[in-house]
């Protein structure tokens, strides 16, 4: 199989205008990832699937990751080829973590196997997948409001009575658990400076 650098070059040639960045993994794992911009992800994925040299026909694993400090969420796709028996190639895409801007293109039209896993990432991380055929919650129940795997999620005091903390319920949970929410933290720091 080609190295990640070669695959990067091939994507850049096949998808004009795309930006592809290489992100290293741990030194031992040796699975460097390709970070593709949101606009060109779908085209890059289609290219990797259809190009005769690569034929990544099997999308094994879709993961949402929340990077709170950077202010971004990331979706990671692990691609393998059943036909040529190579892989993995790791595709990554990033989006801002504010809920209204947090959307990436869905790869379900390319690989059906992404369907449930993207629904899971939507459910637990609030990442919206554009043009996903059936984007609903899958593990949490439909009435649930928040996205529980986000790093700033505050668990309620009692799931039986307050399944989703927001507004007053959230304030109570924050106080009871001794957690300072990000908004209050800024105010506290301002007060300290004064």
């Amino acid at each position, binding site marked *: 199989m080609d190295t990640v650098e070669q695959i990067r070059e091939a994507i850049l040639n096949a998808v004009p205008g795309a930006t592809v960045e290489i992100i290293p993994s741990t030194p031992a794992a040796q699975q460097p990832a390709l970070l593709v911009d949101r606009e060109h992800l779908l085209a890059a994925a289609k290219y990797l699937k259809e190009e005769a040299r690569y034929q990544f026909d099997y999308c094994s694993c879709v993961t949402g990751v929340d990077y709170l400090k950077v202010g971004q969420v990331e979706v990671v796709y692990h691609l393998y080829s059943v036909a040529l028996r190579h892989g993995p190639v790791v595709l990554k895409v990033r989006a801002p973590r504010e809920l209204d801007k947090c959307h990436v293109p869905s790869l379900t039209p390319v690989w059906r196997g992404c369907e449930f896993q993207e629904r899971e990432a939507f459910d637990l991380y609030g990442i919206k997948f554009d043009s996903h055929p059936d984007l609903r919650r*899958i593990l949490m129940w439909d009435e649930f409001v928040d996205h529980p795997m986000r790093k700033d999620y505050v668990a309620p005091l009692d799931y039986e009575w307050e399944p989703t903390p927001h507004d007053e319920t959230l304030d109570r949970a924050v106080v009871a658990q001794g957690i300072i929410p990000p908004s209050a933290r800024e105010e506290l720091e301002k007060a300290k400076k004064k």
Partner: protein
Amino acid sequence: MIQPLTDIKPSGMIETQTIEVSIGPQHPSTHGVFRMDAVLDGETVVALKPVMGYLHRNHEQLAEKMSWLASIPYTDRLDYFNSMTNNWALCLSVEKLAGIKVPERAEYTRVIVSELTRILNHSCVIGFMLQDLGAWGTPLLYAFREREKILDLFESLSGARMMCNYMRFGGVRVDLTEAMIDQAKAIVAKFPRFLDDFEQLLTNNEVLLARCQKVGILPKELAINASISGPMARASGVDYDIRKVDKYGIYGRLDFRVPLGEVGDVYDRYYVRVLEMRESLKILNQVLRDIPAGPFIAPEVKLRNFKIPVGDGYGRVEGPKGELGFYLVSDEGGKMPYRYHCRPPSFINLTTLEDMCLGHKVADVVIILGSVDIVLGEVDR
């Protein structure tokens, strides 16, 4: 005047309505708390949506709040039939990220316990599937009788029958004794006879053939595209076994074949599992014969204060249900996973449930689900 309940169409056909039926979550044939929203036209399935999450406990978030080591017992609870392979998947991923080399004896031990797990899973799945077909008890209890012998071995090895918590980063927790190896040899020696009995009862059984053949067909292209893995993909003719492809552990050195199906129906899924058990016995014969002496865990791996350098990685094993993988991210500090994602095979194998069920009768939905082989602890996590 009494209104007729249905209009008679000019052609003589009765005009009918579709009806939505919720199968589950409390239904014995759904293997746990799993629900299928089915739209039926008479007895025929027109649409079907799987609904899951009743057993969701956010396994991933639990693991992100504790050390790398502490999440091993939690993986036992994912797929409670196959705790050994679940342990292996996590350990393999962590070893991959940290670059740990596993001693030879530990690799052999891991193969022994994993192949025994595969045998017990497959025999139980066949039992459960036939239970769904209406063969009440007999095949299942035959399978459970054999499973008991393997569980006894696991109990003497790890202290627990199902929640084994047996593997550690860089090896296994306790060593296999000679007596246990003899016990395993005895199980392996007797198992083919059980399989022969089982097959004599089932493989050419008229009822089984009538109910299973040409039911729930999954085409090969769809199986690959929908990320179906494990025996279910191989029943559809996808030649993809991670033991052969990745050659993790010592599988590259072992001699075994990968059985494939031709049609991709329920019967193929049954028969591929029977053949896989025979291949597992072949593997077990080799490893039980060749297991070397030596350390059973890498001595340089610290149990306490175990850290992983910054970065991410994905490791996977061929579990009895399919590809079980863990995607792990380690950040500064490295004592706890920043992100811990489990790729559950039975969750993703449900993607094509609707495609397989369309056009079949309600009674077939039950065996199609049985042939997918799900465990809700893993589907919902």
